[in-house]
């Protein structure tokens, strides 16, 4: 029994987690144009990372400024926590028509989707922490992926004379500034696509010579 336990401790991570980790072995930095970025967003029952739960995850992947519609990610989660007051934001009802899956299945699919991609999200730290909480609840480690926050990146893309502005840039504000059509705002997949387009537009504004390198993007 004791040996069993010790054994489990070392190698007892489920296979899907081991597969996920394996993507990060021997990886060399590739060119920005060939790199796979995954833009993602979550809809949650609220903003408390410990108390609230993820209801839906949406993601799209970008390689060389291209998004394949057939390879997008959209799942809805079965959760015990439900807060009626947030329904008006995300529109996900307790007994909605979407096919729901368990949190464990969801995280399996999600890890399999993102692999070692660079993750792009708006106000990324929140979504990152929500996912890490799920991983923690299931006895797994934290996400290993590199993150880019479009809010921060946008601010840095501005001309020097505006950078002292301290206001946080909302996704809606960026869409308006960058002329990104806002259909499907506040669905996870819709917001993921919008974030992806916002990300591409900011990239195009960055000075190709000075800023389009990994050190700058991942700062």
């Amino acid at each position, binding site marked *: 029994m004791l040996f069993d336990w010790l054994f489990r401790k070392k190698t007892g991570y489920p296979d899907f987690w081991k597969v996920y980790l394996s993507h990060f072995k021997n990886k060399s930095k590739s060119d920005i144009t060939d790199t796979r970025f995954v833009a993602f967003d979550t809809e949650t029952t609220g903003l408390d990372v410990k108390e609230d739960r993820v209801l839906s995850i949406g993601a799209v992947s970008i390689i060389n400024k*291209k*998004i394949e*519609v057939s390879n997008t990610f*959209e799942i809805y989660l079965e959760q015990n926590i439900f807060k009626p007051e947030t329904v008006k934001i995300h529109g996900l009802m307790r007994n909605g028509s979407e096919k729901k899956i368990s949190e464990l299945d969801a995280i399996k699919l999600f890890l399999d989707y993102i692999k070692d991609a660079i993750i792009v999200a708006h106000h990324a730290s929140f979504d990152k922490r929500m996912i890490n909480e799920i991983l923690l609840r299931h006895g797994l480690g934290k996400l290993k992926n590199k993150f880019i926050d479009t809010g921060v990146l946008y601010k840095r893309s501005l*001309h020097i*004379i505006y950078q002292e502005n301290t206001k946080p840039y909302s996704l809606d504000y960026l869409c308006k500034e960058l002329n990104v059509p806002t259909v499907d705002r506040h669905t996870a997949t*819709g917001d993921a*696509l919008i974030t992806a387009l916002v990300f591409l537009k900011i990239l195009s504004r960055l000075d190709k010579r000075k800023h389009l390198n990994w050190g700058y993007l991942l700062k």
Partner: protein
Amino acid sequence: MKNSIAERVYDFLKTYPPFNLLKADDLLAISTQVSILYLEKSDNLYEKGESFKNQFYIVRNGGIALLHTKSNNIQEVINICDAGDVFGVRPLIAKENYKLTASANEESIVYAVPIEIFQSVTNNNASVQKFLITAFATNAYDPYTAEEYGKIFVDYLPNNPQDIVNFQTANYSKNPITCDTTATLKEAAIKMSAHKIGCIIVVDNEKRPTGIITNSDIKNKIATGLYPIDTSVKNIMSSPVYTNKKDLTVADGQLQMIKHNIGHLCITKDGTVNSKLIGVLTHHDILVTLGNSPSVILKEIKRAKRTKTLRAARLKANALLKSYLEQSIPLSHIIKIISQINDTVTIRAIEIALKKMPSPPPVAFAWLAIGSQGRKEQLLFTDQDNAIVFANVDDENYEATQKYFLELAKHVTKSLNKIGFEYCEADMMASNTEWCKSISEWKHQFNDWILSPDEKAILLASIFFDYSCVYGDSSLTDELTEFIYKTLDESALFFKFLGRDALKNPSPLGFFRQFVYEKSDDKKDLFNIKSRALMPLIDAARLLTLFNKIKSVNNTYERYEKLAEIEPNNKELYESCSYAFKALSKFKTKQGLLHNNSGKLIEIESLTKEEQLKLRRCFKPISEIQETLKLKFDLKNFV
């Protein structure tokens, strides 16, 4: 798995042909296989000669230019596809290499539709096929296609954009002004004068054209005393008239006019003199369609109802610019014409935007062009720099008023971007809250810049001091100018700051009189003609203009001419600065047209020895004017 994005793609596609002709299930199946592509301006989707891809495209946002590459590697715009337009359909029809290049005319999002799935659901849909073939034919460039696909392509396939225009149906004036054969010449002349027209058609009682009277007939036959003024029109008119059917092309119309040495063609019902007159095609109508003169372009801009039309007119101006440079027309003349066209485009864009607003402007306002547009030196498409100043309002109404003008500016900057003027990288545009304010806020701003100058203030001042009023109430800008000159009297320090800024770009030639190059990624030696040569001249001219309180002279070369008048002892230097500026601008513009960019980075190696020499000669006045500034504003120890 649910796919919300596919549903949104579906929602977009279903409103545009040929997708609107498909069944919902089929279209949804296509939608899930679409790729969403993001293109930066001038990214190519495919190039001439590239082998066909297994997809075709529809524009989601922005605009894609289809370019034909001529033998001398010069590219011509065949068509610009806007949202909902389908292009790149050649692989659907013929498995052969692309004949055109598709390149983003502005930042764009494009959907790529895989051909396999598209064909599997549309195979037998005749209306879809028909649409695609038409789409193909309008964007095609291939003189041989007509033979190969003889049955399908019965229409003429154009060789170049000029040909497209030539083979359009001529746009003649309908409801022409006429008079009876029984009328006197005086009656006819009164009618012509009332309608402000240069010719009148004489018709019989069945409205068939029998003759024509033009201004020159009156001049030659009446004013010379050959006939009395109350003579019958029959004595004066030229007869018979040349007639044609209504569907004649521009090229045909022009040909007939040349052949018969006439300026007017009568359009009749069956094309002969024996049927009813329905219109007149004048030489002027032809010129308008061909559109290669500034007055014609200006007229077209003033009449434009949509941004798309404005864009087409501005593109014609670029072609005009090219031909002017080839013809060695003086640059000062070219600058005047092109900035007139740019101003008119902006005015029209504002007028169109005002129509989109829910209410008229709450108070008077002026639309300012700043930077190079304010100096009216913009030849090629460059960044848009602009600002709004509006009349003072109460505190409680300020926010709402500002919001109105910001909204207006958003519309204007968006359509200017569509026309080809890039958004300003530094966001110095009227759609930015910082650059859209009331006259007293602006005074406050300039006061700040002038009385407490720092690096940032000088950077902004160098752009905002070159403003000119493009649209709206110019008394607002006049008031601002008065204010600025009064404030300048209080600050000697400000001139020193401007002076230091004007000297910040060292001489374009290094110690051994070699060119000073910029570092670039691909190891090429690039010379930045804008920052090394033009900016020092522009900055010096601005400083001296402000110092001498010269008003409403914004062109750099005109500023130097004015300075030469005021300070006769420096006349020679100022005149050579004026000349150098013009020569350098011309150089930059030619490079820009050649490489389809702003032309500011020049590959010195690609220039001939003579061109290099010419360039060097322009640098002498730059170092001389910089020395003059150093002395005049005592900048030696001011660092």
